[in-house]
């Protein structure tokens, strides 16, 4: 028996050696960046992501049937409440339209071009990373114009950037990932800074010109200086300003987008360069 066990150990070590050499080789190639290993990722992504999409579509359809038919019981009261809400929102919309007209007039006066996010494509989130990094899988890839570093946003703000793309799917690194950083400016004072992901639910302020006037509730917008995200999109809101750690105060920022509930996202495949000009609000506040 001992001979059988001893004899059967040889293929084990060979298999272990081959597997370790293969995985170490892949890692080493990425470190040296001499050979592009992205084809391995593209193959596997293109093979597995359709299954994720299929399951996602199936659960979505089931949810649609449930929400559209079964869950409609007792919907009348909610309908009434929503009708009132629609009336209020229509009034709000009218006021906003007036504000927009005024804003466009002021912009024209200041010779500023209206901001534009550029050419976009809407994608559906079909999965989250099966490892520990903060990424999601979306159902659009290079065929739809996406490429690494394409910005991904929602109407609520910045979501992240594409880091890997196959023909029909892409991996999006969320802004809360520990490898992610976004160039920001404080909405109130227009001070420039950088926020960095922590790997958790919040962002850390990594750099800012002056941190003396920071307070909870302040909003950070994208500065556009990182050349990935267009300028002026909401990034996050300061939740706490702690004591100084090194040169800067410890500032926690909650992302504007609820990254735990992503369903559909907007991918910017071509964005017009937003030239960082002095903001009228800053000019007015400066002496």
């Amino acid at each position, binding site marked *: 028996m001992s001979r059988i066990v001893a004899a059967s150990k040889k293929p*084990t070590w060979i*298999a272990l050696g081959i597997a370790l050499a293969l995985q170490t080789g892949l890692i080493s190639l990425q470190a040296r960046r001499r050979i592009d290993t992205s084809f*391995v990722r593209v193959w596997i992504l293109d093979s*597995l992501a359709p299954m994720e999409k299929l399951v996602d579509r199936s659960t979505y359809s089931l949810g649609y049937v449930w929400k559209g038919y079964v869950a409609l019981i007792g919907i009348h009261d909610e309908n009434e409440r929503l009708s009132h809400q629609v009336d209020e929102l229509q009034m709000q919309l009218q006021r906003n339209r007036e504000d927009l007209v005024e804003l466009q007039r002021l912009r024209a006066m200041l010779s500023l071009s209206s901001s534009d996010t550029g050419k976009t494509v809407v994608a559906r989130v079909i*999965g989250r990373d099966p490892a*520990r990094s903060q990424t999601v899988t979306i159902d659009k890839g290079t065929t739809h114009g996406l490429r690494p570093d394409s910005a991904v946003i929602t109407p609520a703000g910045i979501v992240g950037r594409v880091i890997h793309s196959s023909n029909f799917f892409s991996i999006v690194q969320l802004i809360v990932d520990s490898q992610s950083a976004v160039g920001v400016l404080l909405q109130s004072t227009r001070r420039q800074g950088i926020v960095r992901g*922590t790997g*958790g639910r919040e962002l850390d302020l990594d750099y800012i010109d002056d941190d003396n006037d920071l307070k909870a509730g302040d909003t950070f917008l994208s500065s556009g200086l990182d050349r990935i995200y267009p300028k002026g999109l909401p990034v996050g809101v300061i939740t706490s300003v702690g004591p100084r750690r090194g040169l800067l105060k410890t500032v926690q920022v909650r992302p504007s987008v609820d990254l735990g509930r992503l369903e559909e996202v907007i991918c910017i495949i071509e964005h017009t360069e937003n030239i960082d000009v002095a903001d009228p609000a800053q000019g007015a506040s400066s002496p």
Partner: protein
Amino acid sequence: MTIYPMPRASTFGIIGKFAVAIVAVVVIQGILSFKFTLFGFFDLPLIFSVFYGFTLGNPVASIVIGSSLGLMQDSLSGAVLGANGLSKTIIGFFAATAVAKFAVDQPVTRIFALFLFTIGDGLLVTILGLMVGPASGATYSGALSGWGLSAMFNALLGLVLFAYHDWWNATT
């Protein structure tokens, strides 16, 4: 005792079943992590690497299964390609070789193994990520607490899966 070679169709059938199971594990992990934030703390590929290691007791098969699970996990995430592959390969190997040395049918052994493998996996993947990728802004205390939580969740889920496997074996 004469050992007859396994029919070819049966071999392909077994390999096919394992391939389907491996793909299903990675896809289910991706979908459940997306639908339920809490599921992000679980690492189904790790649990199944240990599960196959313990139940098959075959190091070669466990290495192949662990390696495949890890590589697929890397491809569907932003992790360095090969980091989880390397980690799961080692886990599969150790889990299979542990069968001969420890009483892996005991719940305490299983919990302890899953807990240690999860911590080891987190450590190895993080170190490889730092070696290859750009410097991370994450705090080590945050990472440690994440691994701790993940280790507890994995140990509990693993225990349930192992118990189900034992019950299935006993009834069939």
